[in-house]
């Protein structure tokens, strides 16, 4: 009855005009892929997180038991603490490529070469990077050989809880900061040259120009890089952990993503692993929401 009273004009506005309907048609395949490969597994994962699924026998519903277990699981809590330590190093992840990008932008000799060299590790697989740094950081590796040659004591970089996580962070930073340099270089190319010129005429020194002109101009880029880097930190460390430390010593380098793999594959607990995945998903979702908010705010600037 309602439908019959809707005017043709209203129907048209609801469905859009012909080009819009066509556009929707073209988007559908991509949308279907997202639904099939992202949304459906997510819903399955959510479902499994409320079960005792062992990957073999049919799952039984156990309510929020997996989530309650998480609150008392020292390994999971340690993995969250490690994650917070990792996130706390974010300023270094931003400042290092930013400073290098500014130096390249200002035309230091060999800037183009440095740009290529900095970016090079980004094309290497994390497993290859892990294998290389295993040779460097292991107890009888080249870094300790160098330390000993200069009269220092060797350090078990990967086998000591005080150094293992920071060693991993340093390796990950080394392998990814080149991308940050490129992002900041792109951002720097948008800084109006007349502002730099004006600062120079006003007698601003180099650091003052950076602090008062360049960095404020790059604020949207820095915010974007911060959010993207944080999400990358939480989802791309697995390869290095797997190759370099296997999550140890103890739980020193266990991050939630590694724990998910461990529980799912090695400990036959896909149900519990799903609960950890959901928590990580919510954390990532929170960060993504922040990212969207920042980007939409910047779009309004």
């Amino acid at each position, binding site marked *: 009855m309602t439908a019959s009273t809707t005017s043709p004009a209203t129907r048209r506005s609801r469905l859009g005009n012909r080009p819009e309907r066509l556009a929707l048609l073209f988007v559908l395949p991509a949308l279907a892929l997202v639904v099939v490969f992202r949304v459906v597994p997510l819903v399955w994962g959510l479902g499994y997180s409320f079960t005792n699924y062992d990957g073999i026998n049919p799952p039984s519903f156990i309510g929020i038991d997996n989530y309650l277990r998480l609150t008392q699981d020292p390994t999971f809590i340690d993995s969250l603490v490690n994650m917070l330590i990792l996130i706390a190093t974010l300023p270094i992840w931003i400042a290092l490529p930013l400073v290098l990008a500014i130096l390249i932008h200002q035309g230091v000799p060999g800037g183009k070469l440095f740009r290529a060299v900095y970016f090079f590790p980004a094309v290497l697989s994390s497993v290859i990077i892990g294998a290389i740094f295993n040779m460097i950081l*292991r107890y009888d590796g080249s870094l300790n050989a160098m330390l000993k040659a200069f009269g220092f004591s*060797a350090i*078990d970089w990967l086998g000591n809880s005080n150094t293992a996580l920071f060693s991993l962070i340093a390796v990950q930073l080394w392998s990814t900061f080149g991308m940050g340099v490129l992002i900041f270089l792109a951002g720097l190319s948008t800084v109006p040259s007349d502002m730099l010129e004006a600062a120079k005429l006003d007698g601003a020194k180099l650091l003052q120009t950076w602090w008062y002109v360049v960095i404020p101009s790059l604020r949207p880029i820095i915010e974007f890089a911060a959010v993207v880097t944080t999400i990358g930190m939480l989802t791309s460390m697995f390869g290095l952990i797997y190759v370099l430390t296997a999550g*140890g*010593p*103890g739980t020193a380098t266990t991050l939630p993503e590694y724990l998910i793999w461990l529980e799912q594959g090695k400990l036959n607990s*896909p149900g519990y692993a799903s609960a950890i995945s959901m928590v990580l998903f919510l954390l990532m979702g929170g960060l993504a929401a922040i990212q969207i908010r920042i980007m939409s705010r910047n779009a309004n600037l």
Partner: protein
Amino acid sequence: MRKSIVNMLRAGTILAAALAGAAGLAHAEDTTLTVWDFKSGDPALADYFNAVKSDFESAHPGVTIQYVMQPHDQYYTLLGTALAAKQGPDVVMVHGGSQAKERTDALVKLDEAVAPIKNDVAGWAEFTGKDGGLYAVPLSIQGFVVYYNKDLYTKAGLDPENPPKSWAELSAAADALKKAGVTPFALGNKEGFGADFFLSSVAANGLTADQAAAWEKGELKWSSPEIKAIVQAWVDTAKNGWYPEGANSTAMFMDEYETFERGENANVVGLISDVAHWKEFGGFLGDDKVGAFIMPPLGTASGALKMPFAGGIGYGVTKFSPHQDLAIEFVTSVASAPHMQTFFETAGAIPSNTKVDTSKVASPSAKLVLGWLGDGPAIVAHNSLPSAVEEEWHRQSQLLLTGETTVDEAVAKLDAAQAQANKK
């Protein structure tokens, strides 16, 4: 007209029958048994795997055996995915102990099928489910012995033909080796395997039969005096300089064993299967330079020491295999005496089949190992750990080495992990 229709129908029936026959033939020709393992790409085992494949294919025309070697360190993740999806391999290789026992629900019960070979093959206990059924055919026997470098013993003033027989003698030998500038033991504990091997080799002759049975059932606590003493010994031996620095960042396979093969340390807890064993070490150091002894228990041993050993790796059949009968035939063929003979002679692995002729082996340490097999097994303590408890032991063992936890704290956490596992 009617006749022609009948003829046409007849011709059609013949054609359909021919096509169906051809399809059936094609189906038979296309039958492929997919076998997942983590060994078939090993050159040392190539003769064995090739012989099993070619013999089975010859006896079953139209059947192809397709070995798919998965990376060892990712094997159970991949297998878990295949089992959850209920597709992939028809036959799977599994380690004996918890890795097999925790997957029996996905495997076919083999009791009837293996009855003809049961008495010829050893190691079944490690592939027995909670219901008492057999779920995989043992391929190898896995045991833990201490291999030692006779030259380094001589260098330290020790008698290379008279290795330690008690904990006191072992401690004295370690002191002598350190004095001579030799690290007593190789150790890699990056994945926690070093701690597993230590636990099993020390516990083997240190538990009474009742304690060993209780341990296997998960009823003997880590905080019990017997087990806690072993954990304490793990710490003490590290503090006493038995191991090289950096054990927590050294992988057991193969970094730990390579240091032994290079002659950097005097002893190593090794295996008797196809890797880290007498044949491999003899290849590097010389058969006559490699000795072997059974790790003595803490305190005083009662009676002759027994080697800890049990079923090593085995083959099971997945419940979702569309070719179950064929797959069962295959897994019963892998442990036949002629195949196992090849397994032993080419790879040096101690085979599960007791009919294999091992009399021609020349290596002195292999002769010792084969002799200890005849004495019967001692418990392999880490084999009966649920995987979650074993993982916690890996973690705690590393923290004990760095001094970040105490023995009391570690055993308390392990007790908690054991209690959690017992709830399942």
